[in-house]
């Protein structure tokens, strides 16, 4: 009847509405936008990791054809343009705030990493801007540089900032140290493990781009930018950098070709083109080149950690102690300080009932590109550390690695479960996801496959990872108390048009996630409007009331919940209108998927009847209800959400070349209620591709002088289709208990759960070689080194 046919609501694997344009090359990305009178900007970047700028001579460049303007750091400083702000303040153990050195949009007197922008050239064409940039003479005096995470804290290390003595950004801790020490004193066994979490370059398919536009008559600025959160950019750039009131600044993030975190942050180039557009009174477009991306997009991960696990005689975990160094790069990017603290150390309990945890984290400055959140952000680092440690501990305690995990799992009857590191998990069933994954991966049959591979000269290994993560970020009051300088609610507006179609305005932003489809499904499910009649609007501060954007797998859990709340308001108002039209009392009106009904009767009104009445209020309770049918809700979550599950990986190693091939991958994830199973599968597979990339392939490598050796795809190993197996994805649902949709989030689970599963498989494959640990990425060269060392030792 009024139910949408075929079913398009929650649980339908609807094809993605947005793919119609994306697959035909008809997306509208920032670089596709051209403003009348547009000029082009090129950034001149530092070739040095660390140097003083003695002099910049732009005279010859200014005289070149087409050049409109050239600006350097001093030009911005002269107008009191602010530094690029950091959105999160961490406090040291002693309560003092972290070191937060100024981050000028264009370098002032010093450059601090290869790629640090020194000048911007604005010209009629991009080629002219490039030519002129080459003609700028910069006299640098190179300074000693530091790039390594551990090297940064060594006495005598080159100082990246005067305002950060010893390169220390903060020295932070969480948990109960005395309780941890007491637990360790009682332990039958303590297992210690050290590891590095490799630095990654996100490499979204679409490079960053920005267009600054200024209307001299209205005084309005517009920034088109490749952002995951245009309102946040408007807030940060308007309030802290350029001092433009929100009412005079519009930020548009149109189609965006992938973000993975790297497009959350407010970048210098956005402020530069917006400010400069006001100076030259012409629109200015800047589009990043791929090699420029390598040295200017925020990198991810880069931790060095030591973990110790205390066990009792039965293999039960008594406590965990972690010490981590985190590389912030040369400047603090928007979310950087919270990644190795509140998105990392709070996850160290994992899926285990660990009674006590104490973690210390030191963040350091280095002469490298800033490091910030990258798909998973902190949670992959925590999961990797813990899940490798679990394998190492199981081996040393002589326990079966699956049984060891099971023995320590948080049981289903323990939820809500309070960890010793701040989080309270609301729901989950780790035994169930484990059992499903073991079955799907044919764990029991592995030894047979191993023997078959061995007969052909290959080393086969199997690895498991059982994980939980915290996403759907986040309760504003909680993150505020932890140092966030913003709230993390989300906003949804439901606009029911007179004839019943719906426009949704959401503060979430889609850059690959498929919101135009899944969000429409939420409306179809609740209001009974076919998805074809539901349009999702996002990414424009002039259209959407407000929003905090998309990252931390928050779009559905927070943004979707805001929409749900707004739909509740639509239904509540609709019931009052329906009660009037059907001459019933409001309490007697029921609503289900598009139909208002007087309970127990066959008297009904459709949503369209109601919307029409609301906009053409001839017969309408005008004294009691306003016309129109549009509602907005701000939803601030009560807690994080806690997706979790089990990943199992099987690899084969060619001992002659050291090459590792992933031959099987099984993922069973609990992402809460599933809105669109096909999209969940795609999100999980994409995350696993990046997880396999981190485990086997990817590494941002700096030499000691701060030069980026893996600065292009010739040397940075992006995973390709051929590197990946068919990934079997299944879900097992326990509902989130505190949001109205019961959803948890699926955007990051793949990247969080998979790296330790892969590395546990690699170590397992090398079990005859006496290997305790292999660092990521497990490149052929590294694996061959292990095989070769073993061969030499054997001879």
């Amino acid at each position: 009847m009024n139910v949408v046919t075929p079913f398009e609501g929650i649980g339908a694997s609807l094809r993605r509405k947005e793919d119609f344009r994306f697959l035909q090359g008809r997306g509208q990305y920032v670089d596709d936008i051209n403003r009348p009178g547009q000029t082009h900007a090129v950034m001149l970047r530092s070739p040095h990791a660390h140097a003083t700028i003695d002099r910049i001579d732009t005279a010859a460049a200014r005289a070149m054809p087409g050049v409109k303007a050239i600006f350097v750091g001093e030009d911005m400083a002269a107008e009191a343009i602010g530094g690029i702000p950091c959105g999160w303040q961490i406090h040291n153990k002693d309560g003092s705030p972290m070191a937060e050195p100024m981050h000028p949009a264009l370098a002032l007197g010093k450059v601090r990493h290869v790629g640090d922008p020194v000048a911007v050239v604005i010209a009629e064409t991009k080629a002219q801007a490039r030519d002129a940039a080459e003609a700028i003479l910069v006299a640098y005096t190179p300074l000693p540089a530091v790039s390594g995470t551990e090297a940064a804290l060594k006495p005598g290390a080159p100082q990246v900032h005067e305002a950060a003595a010893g390169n220390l950004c903060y020295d932070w801790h969480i948990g109960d140290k005395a309780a941890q020490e007491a637990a360790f004193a009682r332990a039958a066994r303590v297992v210690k493990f050290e590891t590095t979490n490799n630095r990654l370059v996100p490499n979204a398919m679409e490079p960053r781009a920005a267009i600054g536009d200024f209307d001299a008559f209205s005084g309005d600025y517009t920034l088109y930018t490749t952002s995951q959160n245009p309102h946040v950019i408007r807030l940060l750039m308007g309030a802290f950098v350029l001092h433009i009131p929100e009412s005079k600044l519009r930020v548009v993030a149109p189609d965006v070709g992938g973000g993975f975190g790297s497009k959350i942050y407010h970048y210098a180039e956005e402020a530069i083109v917006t400010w400069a557009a006001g100076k030259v009174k012409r629109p200015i477009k800047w589009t990043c080149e791929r090699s420029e991306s390598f040295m200017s997009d925020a990198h991810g991960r880069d931790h060095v950690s030591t973990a110790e696990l205390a066990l009792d005689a039965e293999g039960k975990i008594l406590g965990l102690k972690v010490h981590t160094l985190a590389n912030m790069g040369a400047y603090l990017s928007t979310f950087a300080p919270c990644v190795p603290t509140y998105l990392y150390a709070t996850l160290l309990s994992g899926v285990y009932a660990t009674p006590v945890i104490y973690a210390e984290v030191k963040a350091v400055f280095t002469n490298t590109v800033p490091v910030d959140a990258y798909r998973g952000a902190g949670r992959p680092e925590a999961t990797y550390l813990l899940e490798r440690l679990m394998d190492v501990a199981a081996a040393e305690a002589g326990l079966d690695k699956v049984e060891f995990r099971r023995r320590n799992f948080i049981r289903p009857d323990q939820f809500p479960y309070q960890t010793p590191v701040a989080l309270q998990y609301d729901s989950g069933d780790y035994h169930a996801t484990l059992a499903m994954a073991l079955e799907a991966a044919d764990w029991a049959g592995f030894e047979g496959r191993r023997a078959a591979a061995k007969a052909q000269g290959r080393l086969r290994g199997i690895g498991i990872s059982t994980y939980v993560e915290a996403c759907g970020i986040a309760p504003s009051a909680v993150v505020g108390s932890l140092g966030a300088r913003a709230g993390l609610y989300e906003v949804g507006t439901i606009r029911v048009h007179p004839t019943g179609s719906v426009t949704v305005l959401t503060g979430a932003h889609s850059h690959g996630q498929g919101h135009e489809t899944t969000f429409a499904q939420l409306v179809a499910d609740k209001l009974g409007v076919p998805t074809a009649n539901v349009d999702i609007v996002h990414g424009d501060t002039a259209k959407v009331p407000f929003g905090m954007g998309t990252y931390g797998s928050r779009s559905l859990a927070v943004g979707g919940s805001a929409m749900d709340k707004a739909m509740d308001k639509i239904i509540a108002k609709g019931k009052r209108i329906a009660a009037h039209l059907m001459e019933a009392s409001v309490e007697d009106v029921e609503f289900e998927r598009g139909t208002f009904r007087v309970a127990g009767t066959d008297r009904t009104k459709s949503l369209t009847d109601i919307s029409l009445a609301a906009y053409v209020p001839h017969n309408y309770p005008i004294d009691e209800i306003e016309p129109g049918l549009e509602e907005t809700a701000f939803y601030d979550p009560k807690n994080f959400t806690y997706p979790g599950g089990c990943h199992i990986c099987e690899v084969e190693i060619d001992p002659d070349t050291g090459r590792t091939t992933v031959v099987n991958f099984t993922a069973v994830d609990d992402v809460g209620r599933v809105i669109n199973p096909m999209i969940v599968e795609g999100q999980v597979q994409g995350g696993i591709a990046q997880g396999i990339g981190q485990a086997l392939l990817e590494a941002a490598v700096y030499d000691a002088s701060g030069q980026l050796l893996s600065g292009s795809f010739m040397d940075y190993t992006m995973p390709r289709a051929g590197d990946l197996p068919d990934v079997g994805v299944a879900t097992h649902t326990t509902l989130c208990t505190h949001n109205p949709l019961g959803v948890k989030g699926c955007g990051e689970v793949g990247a969080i759960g998979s790296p330790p599963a892969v590395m546990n498989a690699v170590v397992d494959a090398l079990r005859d070689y006496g290997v305790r640990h292999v660092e990521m990425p497990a490149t052929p060269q590294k694996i061959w080194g292990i095989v070769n060392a073993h061969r030499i030792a054997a001879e």
Partner: protein
Amino acid sequence: MYDFAYHKPASVADAVKILAADPEARPISGGMTLLPALKLRLNRPSAVVDLSGIAELRGVTRKGDTLVIGALTKHYEVATSAEVKAAIPALAAMAHTIGDTQVRNRGTMGGSVANNDPSADYPAALLALGATIETDKRQLPADEFFNGMFTTALEVGELVTAIHIPIPEKAGYAKMRNPASRYAMAGVFVAKTAAGVRVAVNGAGANGVFREKAMEAALAANWSADAVAGIKVDPSLLNGDIHGSAEYRAHLVTVMAKRAVVDAG
């Protein structure tokens, strides 16, 4: 890209004339190497002479015991040519592994040979097969043509016009790819030819593609994977980078040599 003049001659003679008049001009074939270099502003030719309109540079023919491959022949054409597949299957198979579909449909044998990238595939094949490189002026044996990394015997303005490859009794190729670039990190081409056994190594040498004489001798005596299993090239003659140290490459050369022999059958 910097500005440059563009010419599209219809004959080798015209192309050579334009190049002779302007030593800063560069020929372009598939552009798969030159175009990225231009875009990255690593190269600043005054003019680009597009060879793609020259019909006489195209085509694969068999002349007795020799395959003649026109310089403009694309990797895709080599990979799928019935003539190449019948005469030197290892060469067709090699062409099929160069770059990706787009690269194979633009890149040419002449361009690859003229470029002599130390990690490129064809130089190893041509050196091992004892090919002759024909230019607009002369005929050069591969042993004299390939002169180290990105260096050949070509003079400024001289064009590769065709490659003559004696058909071997058997040949095989194996390479370990650089995980990032997918070019060869160590590759070995083995050929049993009328002139004897020849083995060429690409991807690994500090001075570009080279012949591995010890392996040639061993295979001449005993054509089997075991014959080369114990032969290790001196790492001090090899290249090292973040993906493969000289030691690792030396090891790979041995492994790839074994596999190339197996591939040859």
